[in-house]
């Protein structure tokens, strides 16, 4: 079987996770020009909550449902208690406060679950492989591709087909105008902030059986999410999707061609896109 085809499919799976990771970041940025440097911490929390749920004897599906709810609630609370007071300050302070938050989250993870990584087993029903003629592929990874595709469709519908979504899209065009039309932009923002954190947590839960959980995965994820939005275009849903899949496929293909350089190459790809299209593939100038 063609190894490159396999790696492309792998890349799409990883890329969909990157999309989930980046889409929340991108939407939040679109609304309030607010970049959340603690976004990677939500992803790491998701992965660790999955580990914790399995430790408690709960199954994977409970974790997949509970982790985003818990992380979303935590993000919503953080936004209410802390971030709310930051919006009026210059953007440096948004970044510094969320960097502080990410440090606290990382250390909390180490105090709760130790400094070393942990492994998470995929659910029993998804262990093993699917065979399709000569095509052999792990069941769990197929599930990830299918499930994230469904989620992407759901998110797309939320943004394009509902009143809430129109408010969000209008808000990223002009916050003032939307406020004048009587929509509470801050309530909208806390909602989207919680939703973004929840999608990052889902990405974390789904990634846990593939790559395990470790305390520093948050920083790594933040870097990747930035690359995805820079490649795809900041503030764009389709941009996050295209960027995510592209980054996933580049990383996956490179891990066959030059394993040590797989991580390096996604950053090189980013630089290349920046040279050709400074605002990203689907970004507006």
């Amino acid at each position, binding site marked *: 079987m063609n190894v490159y085809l396999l790696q492309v499919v792998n890349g799409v799976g990883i890329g969909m996770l990157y999309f989930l990771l980046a889409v929340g970041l991108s939407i939040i*940025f679109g609304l309030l*020009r*607010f*970049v959340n440097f603690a976004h990677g911490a939500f992803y790491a929390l998701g992965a660790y909550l999955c580990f914790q749920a399995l430790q408690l004897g709960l199954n994977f599906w409970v974790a997949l449902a509970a982790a985003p709810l818990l992380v979303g609630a935590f993000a919503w609370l953080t936004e209410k208690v*802390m971030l709310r*007071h*930051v919006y009026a*300050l210059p*953007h*440096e*302070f*948004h*970044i*510094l*406060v969320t*960097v*502080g*938050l*990410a*440090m*606290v989250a*990382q*250390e*909390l993870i*180490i*105090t709760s679950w130790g400094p070393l990584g942990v492994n998470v087993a995929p659910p029993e029903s998804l262990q093993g492989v699917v065979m399709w003629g000569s095509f052999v592929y792990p069941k769990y990874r197929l599930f990830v591709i299918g499930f994230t595709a469904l989620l992407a469709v759901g998110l797309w519908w939320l943004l394009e087909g509902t009143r809430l979504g129109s408010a969000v899209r209008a808000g990223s065009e002009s916050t003032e105008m939307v406020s004048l039309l009587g929509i509470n932009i801050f309530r909208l923002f806390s909602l989207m902030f919680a939703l973004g954190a929840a999608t990052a947590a889902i990405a974390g839960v789904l990634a846990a059986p593939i790559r395990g959980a470790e305390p520093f995965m948050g*920083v*790594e994820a*933040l*870097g990747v999410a*930035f*690359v995805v*939005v*820079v490649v795809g275009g*900041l503030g764009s849903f389709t941009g996050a999707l295209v960027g995510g899949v592209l980054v996933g496929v580049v990383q996956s293909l490179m891990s066959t061609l030059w394993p*040590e*350089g797989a*991580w*390096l190459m996604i*950053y*090189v790809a*980013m*630089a290349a896109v*920046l*040279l050709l299209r*400074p605002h990203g593939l689907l970004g507006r100038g």
Partner: protein
Amino acid sequence: MEMLKRYRFWLLALGVTLVLPLTMRSGTLATEVLVYAMAVMACNLLLGYTGLLSFGQGIFFGLGSYGLGIALTRLALPLPLALVLAIVLGAAAAALVGWFAIRQRGTYFVMLTLAFAQMFYFLAYTTPDLTGGDNGLLDIPRPPVSLFGTELGSLAGPWQFYGFVAVLFLLVFFLVLRVTESVFGRTLLAIRNNEERAQAVGYNVRYFKLMAFVLSGAITGLAGALHAMLMGIAPLTNIDYHTSEMILIMTVIGGTGNAFASVLGAAFYVLLSDWLSTLWPRWLMLLGFLLIAVSLFIPRGLWGLGEMLWRKMGREPAKPIGQEEQA
């Protein structure tokens, strides 16, 4: 009195280099304060004077460490040349990263600097022949300082090396002070305060930002080189995200907009973390809370706090640099 006022920052910096050996037992720790103070001043030049928040300072720091390490252990260059190499590497990387990142503004710029920091980290990680990969470059020597073949002094002892670093620190401090007081520095302040206006007046904003970035990279490269000499190794951690983060946090805690605030920030962070790390292995959590608190409640940092207290005591405030420029 007029002289005293004019040279007050310079005198404060000189005072720090003299007070550290008198009050501290560990020469290594004292040297670390000055090394980071240089890196923090360079970061401040961007954040405080140009309004650029850079998450890429670890790139220049790490490249400085590697540059010096390779120059001394593999190429067997003399010490001054090794330091120059580190400075040039830092400046060149800053020119490259800056060229990409400065085309973008605001948060987009910050995200790019972080992405490039990750890129250089993985670059160092994937070239173990040059950088030693995970282990870093080991056994970096501290050759004696010599001029035209005559040996001027050894750097082997911790306090001997401290003296060497202190001289370089004072030179860098003087340079930063001169730069910020020059027309160039004033232009940077104008860009920080109102970029559109500076552009409208006819300044090539991108060029000035890039120059500030290159200068910052050069100084940070030197700091990284001295750090490698101090520790005897150039570890992979010197180029990773956490070094960038640490330099940035020191800058914010100290306060932006004045070179001495950076020295304060570096001293505070290095000494506090040295003390906290003996008490609790998870001390970084406290620093995270501190960063949040400083950002929310004393956005002008420790220096700003000191200034406020000074004013409350009813004395004439030292006029903060940059204040008079604000409309």
